[in-house]
Protein backbone atom coordinates (compact mmCIF):
# COMPACT_ATOMS: atom_id res chain seq x y z
CA UNK A 1 0.00 0.00 0.00
CA UNK A 2 1.27 3.46 -0.87
CA UNK A 3 0.19 6.74 0.68
CA UNK A 4 0.92 10.10 -0.79
CA UNK A 5 1.91 12.44 2.00
CA UNK A 6 1.23 16.04 1.03
CA UNK A 7 4.66 16.90 2.41
CA UNK A 8 6.77 13.97 1.32
CA UNK A 9 5.12 12.45 -1.72
CA UNK A 10 4.28 8.82 -2.32
CA UNK A 11 5.65 6.48 0.31
CA UNK A 12 5.30 2.90 1.41
CA UNK A 13 2.70 2.18 4.04
CA UNK A 14 5.35 1.06 6.50
CA UNK A 15 6.37 4.65 7.12
CA UNK A 16 2.92 5.43 8.49
CA UNK A 17 0.95 4.50 11.58
CA UNK A 18 -2.78 4.20 11.76
CA UNK A 19 -5.03 5.64 14.40
CA UNK A 20 -8.62 5.25 13.24
CA UNK A 21 -11.62 7.08 11.85
CA UNK A 22 -11.16 10.82 11.35
CA UNK A 23 -14.00 11.50 13.76
CA UNK A 24 -11.24 11.57 16.35
CA UNK A 25 -10.52 15.07 15.07
CA UNK A 26 -13.79 16.23 16.58
CA UNK A 27 -13.13 16.06 20.27
CA UNK A 28 -16.14 17.23 22.24
CA UNK A 29 -15.83 20.26 24.44
CA UNK A 30 -14.67 19.41 27.93
CA UNK A 31 -18.14 19.97 29.36
CA UNK A 32 -19.98 18.06 26.65
CA UNK A 33 -20.75 15.24 29.03
CA UNK A 34 -19.91 11.59 29.21
CA UNK A 35 -22.29 10.46 26.52
CA UNK A 36 -20.61 12.69 23.98
CA UNK A 37 -17.19 11.50 25.06
CA UNK A 38 -18.31 7.87 25.01
CA UNK A 39 -19.42 8.32 21.44
CA UNK A 40 -16.19 10.08 20.56
CA UNK A 41 -13.92 7.52 22.17
CA UNK A 42 -15.72 4.25 21.50
CA UNK A 43 -18.23 4.34 18.68
CA UNK A 44 -17.15 3.76 15.10
CA UNK A 45 -19.15 3.74 11.88
CA UNK A 46 -16.72 1.19 10.50
CA UNK A 47 -18.06 1.28 6.94
CA UNK A 48 -17.25 -1.18 4.19
CA UNK A 49 -16.30 1.40 1.60
CA UNK A 50 -14.72 4.83 1.72
CA UNK A 51 -13.56 5.90 5.16
CA UNK A 52 -11.90 9.09 6.30
CA UNK A 53 -9.20 8.09 8.70
CA UNK A 54 -6.19 9.37 10.58
CA UNK A 55 -2.69 8.24 9.81
CA UNK A 56 0.60 9.68 10.96
CA UNK A 57 3.66 9.83 8.75
CA UNK A 58 5.58 8.59 11.72
CA UNK A 59 8.81 7.57 10.02
CA UNK A 60 8.60 10.56 7.73
CA UNK A 61 7.65 14.16 8.36
CA UNK A 62 5.45 13.23 11.35
CA UNK A 63 2.43 14.95 9.93
CA UNK A 64 -0.98 13.64 10.90
CA UNK A 65 -3.00 12.97 7.78
CA UNK A 66 -6.63 12.59 6.92
CA UNK A 67 -6.70 9.79 4.39
CA UNK A 68 -9.78 8.77 2.46
CA UNK A 69 -9.42 5.09 1.80
CA UNK A 70 -11.78 2.38 0.71
CA UNK A 71 -11.80 -0.37 3.31
CA UNK A 72 -12.88 -2.96 0.75
CA UNK A 73 -10.45 -2.23 -2.08
CA UNK A 74 -7.82 -0.27 -0.12
CA UNK A 75 -7.97 2.36 -2.83
CA UNK A 76 -6.86 5.75 -1.56
CA UNK A 77 -8.74 8.69 -3.00
CA UNK A 78 -7.50 11.64 -0.97
CA UNK A 79 -4.86 12.63 1.54
CA UNK A 80 -4.69 15.93 3.39
CA UNK A 81 -2.80 17.33 6.35
CA UNK A 82 -4.96 17.02 9.44
CA UNK A 83 -4.06 20.54 10.51
CA UNK A 84 -5.34 21.85 7.17
CA UNK A 85 -8.54 19.88 7.56
CA UNK A 86 -9.02 21.34 11.01
CA UNK A 87 -8.36 24.79 9.70
CA UNK A 88 -11.04 24.22 7.12
CA UNK A 89 -8.54 24.47 4.31
CA UNK A 90 -9.22 21.02 2.92
Amino acid sequence: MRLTCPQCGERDRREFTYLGAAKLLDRPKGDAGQAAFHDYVHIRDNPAGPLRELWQHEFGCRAWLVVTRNTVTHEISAVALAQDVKAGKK
Partner: protein
Amino acid sequence: MAELVLHAVSAIVGLPFSAGGTKLLAAQPAAIVSVVPFKGQFETVSASVKTRIGVGLPVAGRYADGEEGRVLWAGLGQWFVAGSDGLAGELSGLLTGNAAVSDQSDGWSLLALIGTGSRDVMARLCPLDVSGEVFPEGSAARTEFAHMMALITAIPGGFGIMVMRSFTTTAVHHLKDAMESVAAQV
Protein backbone atom coordinates in the same frame (compact mmCIF):
# COMPACT_ATOMS: atom_id res chain seq x y z
CA MET B 1 41.29 18.88 42.43
CA ALA B 2 42.39 19.28 38.83
CA GLU B 3 40.27 21.40 36.54
CA LEU B 4 37.45 19.27 35.14
CA VAL B 5 37.66 18.65 31.43
CA LEU B 6 35.04 16.62 29.58
CA HIS B 7 36.26 14.96 26.43
CA ALA B 8 33.86 14.68 23.55
CA VAL B 9 33.24 11.21 22.12
CA SER B 10 31.81 10.74 18.66
CA ALA B 11 29.04 8.24 18.13
CA ILE B 12 30.48 7.31 14.76
CA VAL B 13 33.21 4.69 14.92
CA GLY B 14 34.79 2.32 12.46
CA LEU B 15 34.69 4.64 9.46
CA PRO B 16 35.63 5.19 6.72
CA PHE B 17 34.76 1.85 5.23
CA SER B 18 34.89 0.76 1.61
CA ALA B 19 33.48 -2.14 -0.30
CA GLY B 20 33.60 -2.41 -4.05
CA GLY B 21 33.15 1.05 -5.43
CA THR B 22 31.31 2.41 -2.43
CA LYS B 23 32.58 4.26 0.58
CA LEU B 24 30.99 5.12 3.90
CA LEU B 25 32.27 8.17 5.76
CA ALA B 26 31.49 10.21 8.82
CA ALA B 27 30.20 13.61 7.75
CA GLN B 28 29.20 15.13 11.05
CA PRO B 29 28.86 18.92 10.87
CA ALA B 30 30.04 21.00 13.79
CA ALA B 31 26.52 21.98 14.67
CA ILE B 32 22.98 20.92 13.87
CA VAL B 33 20.20 23.17 15.06
CA SER B 34 16.49 22.57 14.69
CA VAL B 35 14.41 25.56 13.71
CA VAL B 36 10.64 25.38 13.99
CA PRO B 37 8.95 28.68 13.11
CA PHE B 38 6.05 29.78 15.25
CA LYS B 39 2.70 30.42 13.63
CA GLY B 40 2.87 32.94 10.82
CA GLN B 41 6.60 33.40 11.24
CA PHE B 42 7.88 31.34 8.32
CA GLU B 43 8.92 34.31 6.17
CA THR B 44 10.63 36.15 8.98
CA VAL B 45 12.46 33.07 10.12
CA SER B 46 13.52 32.16 6.61
CA ALA B 47 14.86 35.65 6.06
CA SER B 48 16.77 35.61 9.33
CA VAL B 49 18.26 32.22 8.59
CA LYS B 50 19.30 33.54 5.23
CA THR B 51 21.20 36.40 6.80
CA ARG B 52 23.18 33.97 8.89
CA ILE B 53 23.61 30.99 6.53
CA GLY B 54 23.18 32.48 3.12
CA VAL B 55 20.03 30.54 2.29
CA GLY B 56 16.56 30.55 3.74
CA LEU B 57 14.26 27.65 4.59
CA PRO B 58 13.82 25.35 1.58
CA VAL B 59 10.52 23.78 0.63
CA ALA B 60 9.51 20.34 1.87
CA GLY B 61 11.72 17.62 0.46
CA ARG B 62 14.74 19.83 -0.25
CA TYR B 63 17.90 21.11 1.32
CA ALA B 64 19.89 24.19 0.33
CA ASP B 65 23.49 25.18 0.79
CA GLY B 66 24.66 28.63 1.76
CA GLU B 67 28.16 29.91 2.40
CA GLU B 68 27.75 29.36 6.11
CA GLY B 69 26.04 26.03 6.15
CA ARG B 70 23.23 23.85 4.97
CA VAL B 71 19.52 24.19 5.66
CA LEU B 72 17.56 20.96 5.48
CA TRP B 73 13.87 20.45 5.54
CA ALA B 74 13.43 17.96 8.34
CA GLY B 75 9.72 17.37 8.74
CA LEU B 76 6.39 19.12 8.98
CA GLY B 77 7.22 22.78 9.58
CA GLN B 78 10.65 21.88 10.82
CA TRP B 79 14.19 22.52 9.54
CA PHE B 80 17.68 21.57 10.53
CA VAL B 81 20.49 24.03 10.04
CA ALA B 82 23.94 22.50 9.83
CA GLY B 83 26.86 24.80 10.31
CA SER B 84 29.72 25.92 12.47
CA ASP B 85 30.22 25.72 16.21
CA GLY B 86 28.09 27.99 18.30
CA LEU B 87 25.32 28.05 15.76
CA ALA B 88 22.66 27.02 18.27
CA GLY B 89 23.27 30.01 20.46
CA GLU B 90 23.40 32.39 17.54
CA LEU B 91 20.20 31.15 16.00
CA SER B 92 18.42 31.18 19.35
CA GLY B 93 19.30 34.79 19.65
CA LEU B 94 18.47 35.60 16.10
CA LEU B 95 15.10 33.87 16.12
CA THR B 96 13.86 34.62 19.62
CA GLY B 97 10.11 34.86 19.56
CA ASN B 98 9.93 33.73 15.96
CA ALA B 99 10.91 30.11 16.10
CA ALA B 100 11.60 27.26 18.45
CA VAL B 101 15.31 26.66 18.24
CA SER B 102 17.02 23.62 19.76
CA ASP B 103 20.53 22.40 19.60
CA GLN B 104 20.55 18.97 17.93
CA SER B 105 24.28 18.81 17.27
CA ASP B 106 24.61 15.76 19.49
CA GLY B 107 21.25 14.29 18.67
CA TRP B 108 21.96 13.14 15.16
CA SER B 109 24.77 11.41 13.32
CA LEU B 110 25.45 12.19 9.71
CA LEU B 111 27.04 9.60 7.45
CA ALA B 112 27.91 9.91 3.79
CA LEU B 113 27.58 6.98 1.41
CA ILE B 114 29.47 7.71 -1.77
CA GLY B 115 30.29 5.81 -4.89
CA THR B 116 29.07 3.60 -7.67
CA GLY B 117 27.15 1.17 -5.50
CA SER B 118 25.52 3.72 -3.24
CA ARG B 119 22.13 3.47 -4.93
CA ASP B 120 22.11 -0.30 -4.66
CA VAL B 121 23.11 -0.08 -1.03
CA MET B 122 20.30 2.36 -0.34
CA ALA B 123 17.88 0.05 -2.13
CA ARG B 124 18.68 -2.61 0.45
CA LEU B 125 18.00 -0.46 3.47
CA CYS B 126 15.50 2.21 2.64
CA PRO B 127 12.03 2.20 1.03
CA LEU B 128 12.67 5.48 -0.75
CA ASP B 129 13.01 5.72 -4.51
CA VAL B 130 16.48 7.24 -4.66
CA SER B 131 16.84 7.24 -8.43
CA GLY B 132 18.19 10.41 -9.94
CA GLU B 133 14.88 11.38 -11.55
CA VAL B 134 12.87 11.10 -8.36
CA PHE B 135 15.47 12.07 -5.79
CA PRO B 136 17.96 14.38 -7.47
CA GLU B 137 20.77 16.17 -5.73
CA GLY B 138 19.34 18.68 -3.30
CA SER B 139 16.58 16.36 -2.14
CA ALA B 140 15.96 15.66 1.52
CA ALA B 141 13.55 13.05 2.84
CA ARG B 142 12.44 11.84 6.20
CA THR B 143 11.98 8.11 5.85
CA GLU B 144 12.63 4.68 7.26
CA PHE B 145 16.10 3.22 7.18
CA ALA B 146 16.60 -0.37 8.34
CA HIS B 147 13.72 0.04 10.82
CA MET B 148 15.05 3.38 12.05
CA MET B 149 13.90 6.92 11.45
CA ALA B 150 16.25 8.78 9.18
CA LEU B 151 16.79 11.91 7.17
CA ILE B 152 18.24 11.09 3.77
CA THR B 153 19.79 13.62 1.42
CA ALA B 154 20.94 13.27 -2.15
CA ILE B 155 24.45 14.69 -2.23
CA PRO B 156 27.02 14.75 -5.00
CA GLY B 157 28.07 11.17 -5.73
CA GLY B 158 25.85 9.59 -3.15
CA PHE B 159 23.68 10.06 -0.11
CA GLY B 160 23.73 11.66 3.26
CA ILE B 161 22.21 9.48 5.96
CA MET B 162 21.22 11.06 9.23
CA VAL B 163 20.05 8.90 12.10
CA MET B 164 19.54 9.65 15.73
CA ARG B 165 22.70 9.32 17.68
CA SER B 166 21.82 6.18 19.64
CA PHE B 167 21.17 4.32 16.37
CA THR B 168 24.52 5.15 14.81
CA THR B 169 26.20 1.83 15.49
CA THR B 170 23.22 -0.07 14.11
CA ALA B 171 23.07 2.10 11.00
CA VAL B 172 26.76 1.68 10.28
CA HIS B 173 26.50 -2.07 10.82
CA HIS B 174 23.63 -2.40 8.35
CA LEU B 175 25.34 -0.17 5.85
CA LYS B 176 28.50 -2.24 5.95
CA ASP B 177 26.53 -5.46 5.44
CA ALA B 178 24.68 -4.01 2.50
CA MET B 179 27.84 -2.56 0.99
CA GLU B 180 29.56 -5.93 1.13
CA SER B 181 26.56 -7.65 -0.36
CA VAL B 182 26.38 -5.17 -3.21
CA ALA B 183 30.10 -5.42 -3.81
CA ALA B 184 29.83 -9.21 -4.03
CA GLN B 185 27.10 -8.99 -6.63
CA VAL B 186 28.69 -6.78 -9.26
